[in-house]
C-alpha cells in the first residue's frame, strides 16, 4: 500500500511494506521516499492516540480526522496532513479534474449577522470584510479569502447563522 502524504509544502511517498503485531506493540516497516523505517506503534487510550517509537525516539501523537484531512499533534505542534492513496490519485490525474472558480464564504462559527458589507456584483480584494458576525459578545469581521466578484449574498442583517453556513458566494 502506497500513500502520497502532504504536510505543509512537502509531499512524501510512503509505502507500507509490512506490518505485524508483537505482544506490546505493532511494528510497521515502511519506505518514506525510498528510505526504510521501522516504527513501533501502540494505541494508547483511543484509536487516534498513538505512542510511536522510531529508533527509540518516543512520540506521543494524537491524530484527529477532519473533513480536510488529518490533524497530527505532537511535541507542541499540530500538522495538517493530507493522505492520498496513490492509485486513486493516479485515476484522478488522468481524469483531469478542474477546480471550480466558485468559493463559498462560510461562517466559522454560529452567531448573529450584524452587517453585510458587500453587495452582489462588487469586486472584492483578498482580505476585504464581507460580513460582521457577533458571537460571544465580540464583533468579528469575516473576510474574503481571495479576490473575486460577489456572486450571491445568502444572509441578511439580523440573521442567526450556524457554523459552516454559507454567507456569501464569490466567483
Amino acid at each position, binding site marked *: 500500500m502506497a500513500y502520497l502524504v502532504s504536510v505543509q509544502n*512537502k509531499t512524501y511517498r510512503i509505502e507500507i511494506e509490512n506490518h505485524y503485531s508483537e505482544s506490546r506493540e505493532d511494528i510497521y516497516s*515502511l519506505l518514506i521516499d525510498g528510505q526504510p523505517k521501522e516504527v513501533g506503534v501502540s494505541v494508547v487510550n483511543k484509536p487516534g492516540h498513538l505512542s*510511536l517509537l522510531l529508533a527509540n525516539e518516543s512520540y506521543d501523537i494524537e491524530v*484527529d480526522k477532519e473533513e480536510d484531512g488529518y490533524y497530527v499533534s*505532537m*511535541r507542541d505542534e499540530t500538522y495538517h496532513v493530507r*493522505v492520498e492513496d496513490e492509485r486513486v490519485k493516479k485515476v484522478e490525474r488522468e481524469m483531469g479534474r478542474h477546480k471550480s472558480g466558485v468559493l463559498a464564504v462560510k461562517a466559522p*462559527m454560529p452567531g448573529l449577522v450584524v452587517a453585510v458589507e458587500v453587495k452582489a456584483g462588487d469586486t472584492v480584494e483578498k482580505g476585504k470584510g464581507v460580513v460582521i458576525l457577533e*458571537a460571544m459578545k465580540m*464583533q468579528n469581521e469575516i473576510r474574503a479569502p481571495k479576490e473575486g466578484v460577489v456572486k450571491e449574498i445568502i444572509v441578511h442583517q439580523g440573521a442567526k447563522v450556524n457554523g459552516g453556513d454559507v454567507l456569501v458566494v464569490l466567483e
Partner: protein
Amino acid sequence: MGEEKGGEEKIMFKKILIANRGEIALRVMRACRELNILSVAVFSEADRSAPHTRYADEAYFIGPSPSTESYLRIDKILDVAKKSKAEAIHPGYGFLAENENFAKAVEGAGIMFIGPTSKAMALLGDKTAARQTMSKAGIPIIPGMEKPLRNEEEAKKIAEKIGFPILIKAAGGGGGKGMRMVENKSGLQSALKGAIAEASSAFGNPAVYIEKYLLHPRHVEIQVLADNFGKVVHLNERECSIQRRYQKMIEESPCCIMTEDLRRKMGESAKKVAKTAGYTNAGTVEFLVDKNKNFYFLEVNTRLQVEHPVTELVTGIDIVKEQIHIASGEKLRLKQEEVWLRGAAIECRISAEDPDNNFFPSTGRIEEIVDPTGPGIRVESGIFEGYEIPLFYDPLIAKVLAWGRDRQEAIVRMQRALSEYKIKGIKTTIPFHKRILSHRDFLGGNFDTGFLQKILDTPLPKEQNEEIAAMAAAIIALKEEESPIIKESKETMSNWKKVSRWMMLRR
C-alpha cells in the same frame, strides 16, 4: 481567625451567594468551602449542569441563557439572595461586578456586597471623573478628556489638541470592550462608531472618552486590600502588557522592569488612590509605565481580577478569602511589612478561541481534558469532559498559572504546562500562548502593550517533525482501511468532531 475589636464580635458569614458562573464562580465557592461557608449558585438555562451549579450547596434558576435575562438581572439575583437567606453576595468579575446599581441594591436589601461600597464604585466607575479626582490628589494621569465625549466634532478637536495616536475608551466599563486605538485622523470616525457600539452592547452605556496613547507603554497594576477601618495594604504589582484587542492574555508578577524604589512609589500611589476614593475590599489600581519608568494612573478595577492568582502565588495570600474576611467586618489581618514577594508567577488565559482563525470563538463539546500538573503549576478551570461550551458567555474557559523561584523557572514551567495541557473537542488559545512563551522578546522581558501584534507578525517557527507526522497519518489511514473495528472508531472520531464543530447550542 480575624481580630476582635471594641467588644463587638465579628461573625463570619454562614452563606454566600455567588452572582457569577464559570471558573470564577468555582474559585469563590472553593474559598467558601475552605472557610466552611455554604455557597449559593445562580444559573441560567444553559448552565443547569455547569460546574458552578453542581459545586454549590444550593442552586437557583434565574432565567434564559442570554446574560441580559439571567446573570445581569439584579432583581432575580436579589430575590434568590433573600429566598436562600444568603448574608453576602460575591459578584466575581464581569456581569454585575462593577455595576453600582447592583451594589446599591444589595446594600439596600441589607446584604453584604463583597466588594467596595456603591459610592466608591460610582466614583471610580466614571473613569473620567475618577482621573480628575486622582489628579487633584496628586496622582499622575495621562493627558486626555475630563468628561465623556459629546459628539464626533468634539472628538476631532480633542484628538488634534493632544495629538495622535489617541485611545478611545468606554466610560461605563473596562476589560477592553469598547476600546479603540486611532493612529490618525482618517481612522477616527469608524473607530468611534465601533467603540460606541461595543460599549453599548457590553455595558448598556454608549459613553466613550479620549486620551493620549503612550508609545511603548507597559500595563502594570497594583493589587490593594482595604478594610472598613481605613487600613490599606498593597500586594505588589502585576505586569499585564501582553494584550490582544486590549484584553489581557498573560500576566505576571513581579514585573521585570520593577525596582524596589518604583514598587514602593507605585504601591504608595495605589494606596493613596484607594484612600482618596474611600475604597474598601480588594481592588486593582491600573497604571501605564513608560520607557522612562514614569507611571500614569489609568483606572481602578473595583472587583476581583481575572489575574488575581498571580499575586496569590507570590504572596501566599488567598485574596478571595481576604475579601470575605473584610466584608464580614474584620480588620485587615496583614501589615504592609508582612506582605512577601517570593519567586515569580505567570498566568496564561485559555480561551475557547481559534488562534489560527482570527481568534473566532470556538464552541463544541469538550471530549477530553488532561490538566497540567507537577511542580509549580496551578489550574483554575470552568470546564469538564462532556461540557458543551455555551455561546452566550465570555470565551475564557481556564487559567494556567506557573510559579518558579525566578522568572526563568516560572517560564519553563509554564512552557511545560502548556505542553501537557490537553483540551480536545474545541479550539483553544493554548498554541498561541506557546508561541508567546517561546518568543525571544518575551523571554527577555522586552515588551510593551503592542507586543502581541509583533507575535502575529512573526512567521511561525518551522515545524520539526513533518516526517513523523506523515508516517503517523499514513499508519492511521492504513488502519482505517484494514480494520473494520478501527474504521468504526474512526467514524466515531470523525462524528464527534463534526458534532463539536457544528453543534450550535447545548441542549
